């Protein structure tokens, strides 16, 4: 029972901290450090986007071959696009995006803020009169959330490209035009918006968890490593919970497919 209570306490602390960060963004206090936000956004673009895109591409290829072999097994390789459209847009790209956000950005925040915490830099900030949560947490949340929707849309495109490469070039049982016709019929702009909401919820969760574990790190350099590992475990649970709930919410009652009446 103690582990359950500890877990709930930890969850409460994370929510409490997350609300502190979010309220500093919403109230506009973060705008005092707008330059820092933009700098963090720049670091995200130059440092993390590449690997996120790479994982999305790899899983897009995966969607492609599953769709190609799966539809071939029912004797209709030309409808591979129906599978890859749903697979990429609705599920695999948000999950791949969330996984890599957690791996690259989330643990990166923990390592960085944790190092600042244990070398007493965060205390020094507060002594100087800076609000550390605003300067370190809220600026990151704002900066990343400005950039991430665009990164996500690029990632969707790269996932599409991966599936196209796998189905049309590599598998080669369907022509480019026939593949793309079915592919575009099986998605709407609203699906894209839903997918974006799903990906952004996962990203916001990852950023806030990263800030919490980094800000509250203790126990020397070893403690930073432990906090980084723990944040990853929390992220894995959170990403899947968000993915499950948003799929049920967005597509659970209406499959949104152009089939039938």
């Amino acid at each position, binding site marked *: 029972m103690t582990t359950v209570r500890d877990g709930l306490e930890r969850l409460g602390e994370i929510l409490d901290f997350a609300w502190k960060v979010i309220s500093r963004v919403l109230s506009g206090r973060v705008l005092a450090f707008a330059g820092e936000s933009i700098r963090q956004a720049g670091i995200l673009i130059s440092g993390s986007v590449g690997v996120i895109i790479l994982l999305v591409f790899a899983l897009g290829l995966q969607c492609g071959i599953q769709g190609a072999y799966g539809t071939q097994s029912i004797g209709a390789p030309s409808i591979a696009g129906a599978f890859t459209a*749903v697979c990429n847009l609705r599920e695999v790209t948000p999950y791949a995006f969330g996984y890599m956000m957690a791996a*690259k950005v989330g*643990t990166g925040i923990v*390592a960085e803020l944790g190092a600042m915490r244990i070398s007493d830099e965060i205390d020094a900030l507060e002594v100087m009169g800076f609000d550390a949560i605003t300067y370190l947490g809220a600026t990151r949340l704002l900066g990343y959330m400005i950039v991430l929707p665009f990164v996500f849309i690029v990632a969707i495109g790269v996932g599409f490209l991966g599936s196209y490469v796998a189905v049309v070039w590599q598998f080669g049982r369907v022509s480019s035009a026939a593949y793309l016709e079915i592919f575009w019929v099986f998605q709407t702009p609203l699906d894209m918006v839903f997918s974006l909401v799903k990906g952004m919820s996962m990203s916001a969760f990852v950023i806030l968890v990263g800030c919490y574990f980094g800000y509250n790190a203790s126990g020397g350099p070893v403690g930073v*490593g432990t906090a980084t590992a723990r944040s990853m475990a929390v992220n*894995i*649970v959170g990403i899947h919970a968000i993915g499950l709930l948003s799929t*049920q919410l967005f597509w659970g009652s209406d499959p949104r497919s152009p089939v039938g009446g």
Partner: protein
Amino acid sequence: MVPVTGGPLTALPGTVGAMGVLLLRTTRAIVRTPLAFGPELVSQIAFAMRVGWMPLVLAAVAMSYGPAGIQAAGFLNLVGAIDRMGGLFSITVIREFAPLVCAIVMAGVAGTAMCADLGARKIREELDALSVLGVDPVTNLVVPRFLALIVVTMIFNVYALIFGTLAGLLVAVVNGSSAGVFFHSYFDNAATLEVLASFVKTAIFGGIIAIVCCYKGLTAEGGAAGVGRAVNQAVVLTFLAIGLVDYAFTQALLALSPELSATR
């Protein structure tokens, strides 16, 4: 283990090579006497299972219920073929989602913890002390973790299969099918080779996670951010490797065994 220096791209070939060397040394130490890793192996297996079981169950249910379940059930309902749900699940869960979920959970939960643990020993100079005492870190620390992660990832695959299938059953029942129809179609389409390949794949994933995370832990550098940075790089490299190996493995399997692509 000497860390490879340079930018992220220039250091990549050297890092991959160094991980290959670590893999060779590990496999050699596994078969060479004295086999001194027994107690450590047991404690690592217990550790990995303890930290991993809850995320694994949740992730397996979420992956099967959401992507495979809701999306497929919606489509199959439209074309009036909800009775084929079981066959679809026996393919997607066994071939794809169960191994992937195991790999993601083990990398994110157990791999990171092992990397942090080894990194902590490295920067506290415990590894140097061990070497001075004549205790080889590869034989005594990497080998048990390597074997433990392979074993636990394969055991977890069983649970991912069970919980993934249960989540599929839940979706089928929610959408008006019945358990009997679901399992009829499920076992019609299940193939022994598919299950075998699923376990081979998880074993490969477990080995990758162990080598990458142990390498990054053993080469953690000092400084306040050192261990955290090592864990960060370890999990990024592991996820990328899992994605690429998954693609190569599945493609090779499907191309070499066309009988797997037959609907029964």
